[in-house]
């Protein structure tokens, strides 16, 4: 935390390294740059020195040569006295002077002290020879003193002087050598010196590089060690560990990052501690809640038990009610049969019996009331049956045109008797509806006969057309029955669908209704998945409209059985007719009867299970082990059709995904073949496409994996609904 200001600002590691390298490189470049001109300079000097050496030697030789020429020429002249020999003497003199001057210049220009001195001596000796001997001799010759000139003394003097000159030339040569040596050695010193300087500079650069590198490595190592130590401390949980300011700012920023991380970790840790405490509190609270929950669960369990008990009580009550209704129906009908039967017979017999008009009318009154009582019994039983959820609806294609026409035909006699016009109107293009034809017919019959009853004059129209559904999401079929009757006041419209309710009590007797017709219509409409509404005003007639969804497929399969009415035990399906009407002691005999039926109709309790997976077949067999059904397993779907026609099982269980022939195809084959179409098919598959199954004609749909109880329930419902309304439906009409 204490960002020390007394510490120097951390420098950049990279910057420092760069700087050191820059210095080293500059030094090396300097050495290189310096050594070039020094080398060139040295070699130039060397070259000059060599040239000078050659020039000096040439000069010295010239001096000696010209002096020798003079001496030779002088001697020839003296001995011959021929002036021809004087020519070499004079030219030698001229050349000598030139050579001496040239050499003097050179020696002076090059600062050759020894040579200059030696040259002066040479000049002095040469001059001594020339002035002391040569000019004296020349005078002697010119004055004709040949003997003097040719005397040995003069010859000796000349010779001695010339030898001295020769000695000085030798000395000059030595001096030149000495001077050149001095120059050479000076040059050598300069070369060596420059080499040494270059070497020293290089070494300095290398040392600097080494120093920087070593220092860098050391510092890096030291600071990395600090970082490592702190990281370790942090890692081992010491969240107070912090990295101090580091020399290099790269490492320093790493250190600060580490510090920030540690800071964060510490904060988080504190927060976590807080959370842990909170959690502990919550946990304690939860424990409390748990106890409460356990208590509640216990209470719930008790409630569930109570509910189960209640449910079974209700179930029993429901069974008892069904039995009661059934018995009551039977017991009421039996005496009524005699009343109606005898009355009819008497009336038919009227001519023979010879009774008067009053007696005839009275008999007719008895018959009418008997019939009214009968329709009351029928309606009440219908209503209770619907309300108890006993009525099962199966769906098929209903030809609307045919249905409406037949309803009109059936009620036409009432219309004619009441002098009313009765018409049916079916919109084009809506000939078929998926519904239950019998129930739908009952609804329309009730509505039409109701309309006819409550209309004094005018007409009654029954129509079918497509309309938008009330929720605007699809299409509906609207079946409307319109009359021009007395109409229903608004406050009564809400009650017309209640049992035993009529707009005007007086009409009941007059029109002969039971007061249950509209109630049954309403219940049946609901059962068919539709709604009913009435539109009316007093004196303006009424319109009853039944709205049915276009698709109301498989309503019965999903809805049946109702909640408080669990499926009957399996035995009930084994003896399809409900035994409710009979004393329990008779069920054994019933069994025998049924067994006979089984024998005569060729039906049996076989169930064919088609699944390519043998395990599933084993599973189904195990599930149905304790039931009266025998499961025949088949793994090859191709053999299924043949086997079905041979065994004629009471139900088929089909898998969908099978090789060669899938379940949908097999289902389709089964349902299009009239010989097998009526056998209920249960799909058992992992696919969740029940709609496909139902569209193809499946009667039940079970998704794998399934529970045994679910399989049993589904099978039970399937067979119960099969023995229920399927074939029986057609005969229901005969009842009234």
């Amino acid at each position, binding site marked *: 935390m204490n960002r020390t200001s007394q510490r120097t600002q951390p420098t950049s590691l990279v910057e420092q390294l760069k700087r050191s390298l820059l210095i080293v490189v500059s030094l090396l470049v300097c050495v290189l740059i310096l050594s070039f001109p020094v080398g060139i300079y040295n070699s130039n000097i060397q070259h000059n020195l060599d040239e000078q050496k050659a020039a000096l030697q040439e000069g010295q030789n010239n001096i000696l040569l010209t002096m020798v020429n003079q001496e030779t020429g002088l001697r020839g002249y003296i001995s011959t006295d021929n002036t021809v020999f004087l020519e070499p003497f004079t030219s030698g003199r001229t050349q000598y002077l030139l050579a001496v001057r040239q050499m003097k210049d050179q020696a002076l220009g090059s600062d050759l002290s020894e040579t200059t001195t030696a040259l002066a001596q040479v000049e002095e000796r040469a001059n001594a020879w020339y002035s002391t001997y040569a000019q004296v001799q020349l005078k002697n010759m010119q004055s004709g003193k040949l003997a003097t000139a040719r005397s040995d003394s003069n010859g000796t003097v000349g010779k001695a002087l010339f030898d001295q000159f020769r000695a000085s030339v030798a000395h000059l040569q030595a001096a030149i050598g000495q001077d050149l040596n001095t120059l050479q050695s000076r040059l050598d010193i300069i070369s060596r010196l420059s080499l040494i300087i270059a070497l020293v500079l290089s070494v300095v650069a290398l040392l600097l590089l080494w120093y920087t590198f070593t220092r860098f490595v050391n510092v890096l190592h030291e600071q990395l060690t600090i970082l490592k130590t702190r990281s370790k401390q942090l890692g081992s949980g010491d969240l107070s560990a912090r990295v101090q300011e580091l020399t290099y700012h790269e490492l320093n920023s790493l250190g600060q990052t580490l510090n920030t991380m540690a800071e964060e970790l510490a904060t988080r840790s504190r927060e976590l501690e807080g959370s842990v405490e909170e959690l502990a509190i919550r946990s304690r609270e939860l424990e409390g809640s748990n106890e409460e929950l356990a208590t509640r669960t216990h209470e719930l369990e008790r409630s569930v038990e109570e509910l189960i008990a209640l449910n079974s009580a209700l179930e029993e009550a429901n069974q008892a009610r069904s039995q009661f209704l059934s018995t009551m129906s039977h017991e009421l009908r039996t005496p009524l049969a005699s009343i109606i039967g005898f009355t009819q*017979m008497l009336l038919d017999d009227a001519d023979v019996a010879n009774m008067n008009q009053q007696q005839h009318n009275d008999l007719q009154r008895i018959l009418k009331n008997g019939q009214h009582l009968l329709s009351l019994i029928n309606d009440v039983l219908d209503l209770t049956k619907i309300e108890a959820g006993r009525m099962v609806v199966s769906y098929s294609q209903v030809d609307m045109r045919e249905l409406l026409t037949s309803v009109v035909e059936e009620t036409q006699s009432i219309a004619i008797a009441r002098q009313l016009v009765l018409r049916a109107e079916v919109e084009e293009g809506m000939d078929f509806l998926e519904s239950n034809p019998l129930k739908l017919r009952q609804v329309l019959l009730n509505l039409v006969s109701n309309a006819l009853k409550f209309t004094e004059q005018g007409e009654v129209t029954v129509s079918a057309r497509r309309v938008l559904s009330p929720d605007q999401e699809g299409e509906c079929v609207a079946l409307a029955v319109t009359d021009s009757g007395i109409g229903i006041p608004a406050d009564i419209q809400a009650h017309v669908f209640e049992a035993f309710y009529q707009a005007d009590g007086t009409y009941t007797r007059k029109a002969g209704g039971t007061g249950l017709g509209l109630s049954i219509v309403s219940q049946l409409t609901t059962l068919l998945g539709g709604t009913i509404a009435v539109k009316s005003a007093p004196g303006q007639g009424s319109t009853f409209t039944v709205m049915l969804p276009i698709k109301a497929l498989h309503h019965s399969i999903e809805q049946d059985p109702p909640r408080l009415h669990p499926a009957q035990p399996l035995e009930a399906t084994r003896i399809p007719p409900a035994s409710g009407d009979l004393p329990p002691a008779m069920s054994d005999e019933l069994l025998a009867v049924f067994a006979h039926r089984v024998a005569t109709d060729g039906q049996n309790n076989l169930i064919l299970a088609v699944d390519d997976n043998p395990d599933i077949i084993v599973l189904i067999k195990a599930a149905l082990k304790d039931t009266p059904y025998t499961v025949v397993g088949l793994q090859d779907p191709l053999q299924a059709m043949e086997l079905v026609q041979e065994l004629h099982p009471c139900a088929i269980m089909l898998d969908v995904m099978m090789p060669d022939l899938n379940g949908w195809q097999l289902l389709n084959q089964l349902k299009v073949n009239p010989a097998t179409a009526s056998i209920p098919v249960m799909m058992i598959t992992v696919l969740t496409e029940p709609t496909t199954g139902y569209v193809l004609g499946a009667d039940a749909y079970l998704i794998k994996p399934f529970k045994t109880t679910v399989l049993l329930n589904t099978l039970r419902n399937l067979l119960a609904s099969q023995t229920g309304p399927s074939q029986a439906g057609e005969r229901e009409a*005969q009842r009234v």
Partner: protein
Amino acid sequence: MDEHTTTEQQQHILVVDDSQDMRELLQRLLERAGYRVVVAEDGQASLTQAKRHHPDLILMDLSLPDMDGWEAVAHLRKMREFRTIPILAVTAHVSAREAERAMAAGCTAHLGKPFDTRVLLQEVARLLKDGG
């Protein structure tokens, strides 16, 4: 009864019902329509009467004491001579399920009580014509 007798063509009908009233009603209705009628008041008696008279049609109530109608029909159907005889169930068990039950037991047709006398006579005539 005698005035209706055309002995050769008269067809025999066995009426089985435990109700005295109903037996009498059916008997009189049928006899007035020109049939010969024998009656039985329970299942057991129906078998005896059937064997004795070999009727052309049996009207069978189903809820009967001792041996009920379903059982009686089942027994009859087991005997070769009654295998094809038309049997009309005339019963106060009227629901569709009951009708099916009656058919399953071996009845040829089902008529609920109370019945319209004209419908009964029509049904009887039809069964005698088709099923006899």
